[in-house]
């Protein structure tokens, strides 16, 4: 009780806005639809899970007179049921379709978000080439006139399948069985991949498989994931790669062999569940990344002045709400399953943890409130 109350007082100066919710079940998914809604989904095995489309509390989208809007709750705008654990969910931009990936990993599920009711309905499945029972395929979407779903468990099984015709429009065509940890579509014909070993590559789907990648084997070990900064964001290295031993590397896509900087983050290592590792670039806060997956915190770093010398760094901000808000104590503290930045509000993030908590927080930047 004490610790929770102390933290609450602390939070008065640490956060501008802070909302904490308890979902029915924990989620590993936080996928935006526009800037007012997110999707969450359950990942329990052998149980019926829910996929929910949640609308953010209205007051978070209001620019003026925020004080006159008392509603602080999420609205469940749509809901659906999945018989499988949902480990990833991607919205197909410009449509009312969703693609989910989960366990068992032999197929992807396509859903439709109803327009005239609040139901999310399963509409079709996409068979996964070389699918495996216990590994779920990574997914990313090529959004265009004919959306294509990029997916794969290993490099050898990487495919792009046209959503409507279900025809495979691209295949990696390699026999390399390295396991994938992230897939990210960058534009109409490029995507990036990151393998669990830390191997990174950029692929142009107009040509046969010839990625620009870091070929030197990763001596650091552990499990890795990565994210690439969106277009039009601040200059500087645009690839961030996170390892389960707490290492964070920044790379330039034109020279993946030589990281621009490599630092050690002050996190408990190794990560208790490296599959949950996540590194994200802030969409509207220059040169900031957030990481999670080591404990019950989300850490934000300003990478502007990082250089090759590496070594220890200190986070700009650490969100400890999931640990302290409900008095868990450090023994039974939950683990962050995923986090995401608000597309528009520079310092607002959403974070979800293994205890089904979901936080929306807007931290106060250095120098007082933004």
């Amino acid at each position: 009780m004490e610790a929770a109350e102390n933290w609450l007082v602390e939070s008065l100066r640490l956060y501008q806005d802070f909302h904490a919710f308890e979902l029915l079940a924990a989620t590993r998914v936080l996928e935006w639809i526009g800037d007012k809604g997110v999707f969450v989904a359950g990942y329990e095995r052998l149980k019926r899970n829910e996929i929910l489309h949640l609308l953010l509390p209205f007051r978070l989208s209001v620019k003026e007179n925020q004080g006159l809007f008392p509603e602080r709750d999420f609205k469940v705008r749509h809901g659906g049921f999945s018989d499988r654990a949902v480990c990833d969910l991607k919205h197909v931009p410009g449509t009312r379709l969703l693609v989910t990936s989960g366990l068992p990993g032999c197929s992807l599920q396509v859903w439709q978000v109803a327009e005239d009711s609040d139901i999310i309905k399963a509409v079709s499945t996409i068979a996964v080439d070389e699918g495996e029972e216990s590994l779920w395929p990574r997914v990313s979407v090529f959004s265009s006139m004919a959306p294509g779903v990029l997916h794969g468990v290993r490099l050898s099984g990487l495919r792009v399948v046209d959503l409507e015709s279900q025809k495979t429009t691209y295949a990696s065509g390699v026999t390399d069985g390295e396991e994938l940890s992230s897939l990210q579509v960058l534009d109409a014909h490029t995507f990036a991949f990151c393998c669990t070993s830390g191997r990174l590559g950029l692929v142009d789907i107009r040509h046969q498989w010839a990625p620009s990648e870091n070929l030197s084997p990763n001596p650091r070990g552990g499990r890795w994931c990565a994210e690439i900064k969106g277009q039009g964001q601040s200059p500087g290295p645009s690839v961030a790669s996170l390892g389960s031993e707490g290492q964070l590397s920044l790379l330039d896509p034109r020279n993946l062999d030589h990281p621009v900087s490599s630092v050690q983050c002050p996190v408990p290592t190794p990560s208790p569940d490296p599959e949950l590792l996540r590194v994200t670039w802030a969409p509207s806060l220059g040169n900031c990344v957030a990481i999670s997956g080591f404990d019950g915190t989300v850490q934000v770093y300003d990478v502007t002045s990082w250089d090759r010398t590496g070594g220890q760094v200190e986070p700009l901000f650490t969100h400890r709400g999931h640990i302290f808000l409900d008095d868990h104590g450090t023994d039974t503290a939950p683990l962050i399953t995923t986090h995401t930045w608000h597309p528009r509000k520079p310092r607002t993030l959403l974070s979800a943890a293994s205890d089904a908590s979901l936080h929306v927080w807007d931290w106060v930047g250095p120098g007082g409130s933004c």
Partner: protein
Amino acid sequence: MLDCGMHMGYNDDRRFPDFSYITRNGRLTDFLDCVIISHFHLDHCGALPYFSEMVGYDGPIYMTHPTQAICPILLEDYRKIAVDKKGEANFFTSQMIKDCMKKVVAVHLHQTVQVDDELEIKAYYAGHVLGAAMFQIKVGSESVVYTGDYNMTPDRHLGAAWIDKCRPNLLITESTYATTIRDSKRCRERDFLKKVHETVERGGKVLIPVFALGRAQELCILLETFWERMNLKAPIYFSTGLTEKANHYYKLFITWTNQKIRKTFVQRNMFEFKHIKAFDRAFTDNPGPMVVFATPGMLHAGQSLQIFRKWAGNEKNMVIMPGYCVQGTVGHKILSGQRKLEMEGRQLEVKMQVEYMSFSAHADAKGIMQLVRQAEPEAVLLVHGEAKKMEFLKQKIEQEFRVSCYMPANGETVTLPTSPSIPVGISLGLLKREMVQGLLPNTKKPRLLHGTLIMKDNNFRLVSSEQALKELGLAEHQLRFTCRVHLHDPRKEQEMALRVYSHLKSILKDHCVQHLPDGSVTVESILVQAAAHSEDPNTKVLLVSWTYQDEELGSYLTSLLKKGLPQAPS
């Protein structure tokens, strides 16, 4: 009739329910056995005096004791605003409120109340606000539970709703908040603390208009808990009217609050806080920061309005409205964004910060599922939602609990099939006779029992047919069927009969087949006699006769014999 609320959004007739749904011509008292009010919020009791005194109802109105005490106060407040402030005509009067309350019968939690010899009701704790209850309504073995507004998580001054596994045929619940996921209580409190803190830090004054009960209590406890931690020195005040009233009610209804409050109250005065002092009007003009809780809650009169007028012009100050304000009040105006007000012929410019905070505790999607799990109803009915926005919740409830879920629109009637259980006494003789049959009772395999059901004076008994006949003084009648089977056979009748006997004996090995001295053949109780055809000596007529009880065997025998007899070796 469950609840009798007022619609806050309308100023005309639409603000009151349309009672013609109950009856168009008759007296409401003839159509309603009773009215139940779940709690004192105006959207649940605001139309009560209109209903009972202006439309006309003289039957009992049930509610909990706190509701009975608080309702009239809120109704009078509301009446004052409507009539004095907005100049409404055709509104209920103070006398009508009094007359209406005379019809109220107050109930205790978990007390079974007999409304008449068939109908009984029982109240359950609902949390939400002081005195709020959920009601179980029962007739015989059929029951309905109406939840009103409830809350499944305890707060600083009220506990959480609770109901036992009463397994009603139907659970009626609010669905307005069913499609929300509530922000935690801690975060709401944090927001309140933050706003107060920021204002006080910059030297401003915070006005919190409150109704005497509920929220005021909660917020005071909150500030008291954190004032020291936040190292704040500014004074916090409570207008005295508030203290007296609140103390009075809490004393009366101490069992309705949560454990913590009860403990505190027993030790001292409810409102004896370390940092919170009684307010004096003179303090309004004191310089420097301060926080004041004052009544009434909607800034429509009295002390809170006086303070507001003095502080509104300074942008360092803040007013925090902790609840809904009825149209026509200053509270409602400033919450709508109005910054220039006309008061007593003068213009008032509102420069102070206006904050609208919602502390009301409602069950959300999770809460509804919890309650359904607790009560285990056979069916669920969701009210006050939009059908298109509740499809998912309906599916959730149906799939998780395997119950039907209804979402009727306003004015729609829902009919639910129920399977009432009727207790029937079985006579010992009949039971013993069945037991003698030899087979042991098996809970997994129901066994068919034959008897006669006698219904007399609301009493149901199952007895043997013989006993029933005896009791009713009736003679038993037997039905006997006779069928004629024509067979071509030149032999004599006696020979024919013998052949029939051999044939049947060889086929019906499980049955008792006998050849009687008079030539007839019996199979169990069935009689077969051979006779010559009156006109054709080569055709024989077999008369097959059986009782109604042996219908099946009789029909079988007939069709068997129709097939003819096998050629016998000579």
